[in-house]
């Protein structure tokens, strides 16, 4: 069984379960979001042909941004988002708030590519993470699993001189 057909099946059951409870139409399949090493499965999204709308808690699962009264925030950065009325970044449907992840990406000039057919959305790096790289020559931090599955961060190596090497088997 391919993982894609499995997700279709789950999304279908979920939609059936909600049909009587809410007037809100939800997407008929699970959505998958790729960001850095993350593969985040989202059970419910707003149906939209060209943008990705998720619940605020799913936004945090995707990219660590948190929806606060002052906006969508990551550490010290906050992008203002109106929440008392609908906007291109945030809407309320049936009492549930929905956040526009692709809208945030566009505002942050973060590149993204989607396979609309399967509901797989892939996000690139956020330029804000690399400001001090292009102007300042600071090494951007990263998080990758080692071969035992432990997370390795470049910032773990502060105090050492690091030779970072890329290679490939091919």
């Amino acid at each position, binding site marked *: 069984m391919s993982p894609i057909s499995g997700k279709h099946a789950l999304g279908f059951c979920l939609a059936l379960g909600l049909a009587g409870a809410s007037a809100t139409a939800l997407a008929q399949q699970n959505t998958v979001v790729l960001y850095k090493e993350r593969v985040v499965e989202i059970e419910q999204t707003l149906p939209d042909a060209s943008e990705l709308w998720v619940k605020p808690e799913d936004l945090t699962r995707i990219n660590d941004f948190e929806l606060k009264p002052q906006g969508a925030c990551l550490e010290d950065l906050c992008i203002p988002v109106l929440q008392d009325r609908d906007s291109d970044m945030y809407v309320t449907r049936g009492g549930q708030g929905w956040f526009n992840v692709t809208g945030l990406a566009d505002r942050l000039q973060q590149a993204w590519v989607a396979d609309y057919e399967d509901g797989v959305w892939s996000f690139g790096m956020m330029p804000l993470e690399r400001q001090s790289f292009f102007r300042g*020559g600071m090494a951007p931090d990263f998080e990758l699993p080692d071969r035992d599955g432990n997370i390795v961060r470049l910032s773990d190596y502060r105090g050492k001189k690091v030779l970072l090497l890329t290679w490939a088997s091919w």
Partner: protein
Amino acid sequence: MWQSIYEEIQAEYPDFEIISAAQDTGGEADAGPIIDAANVTYTALIDVNHHISALYNLVNVPSGVWIDEEGRIARINEGTYATTHFNGAIGTDEYTPIVRDWVANGWDSVHAWDQDRVEESIFERTPEAERAQPAFRLGSYYFNSDNDAKAEQYWTLAQELDPTSWNYLRQDLNYEEGGSAGPAWQQRRQEIESAGGSYYAPLEIENSDND
């Protein structure tokens, strides 16, 4: 081959570390045996989504970045073979001595670049090429979900968006007839070189006479 150099430098300078990142969508199955065979004791990562290349604007392997104790870059974007291969056809044996010099002398090393030089040396990507990374990531997701048709679709898109990336081209060719160093790769390399370009970002070693 980096292992013996690592051991030698580390014996004298324990605060030296190598982090290697295999740009291998095939993951452990492809890169693991090579790491095992080299008895690697430095930090060896397998970067299935080519994240490090995307993050540091690297387009080829092997590439190297020097990062000091505070996270400041001292050199970037060079073809970094530890030794020569194929009778000198690939690589250089000039790189290891300058690494050693930097570890010993830090910012006093003539081979450590100042901030302006580092910023100038970062490879420039167009906004289109920035989209190549999520496209490649999407292709790799499909590759590892055994959906070859969509993997090919998005890997091809990544190559169209960023024609400067040898990594995206060769990772893809690795799964096609002819392989990653076959006729398709050779043709592309010849096209670039006959137009006056170079396949590897050039390694320019400073004269150290005044050390």
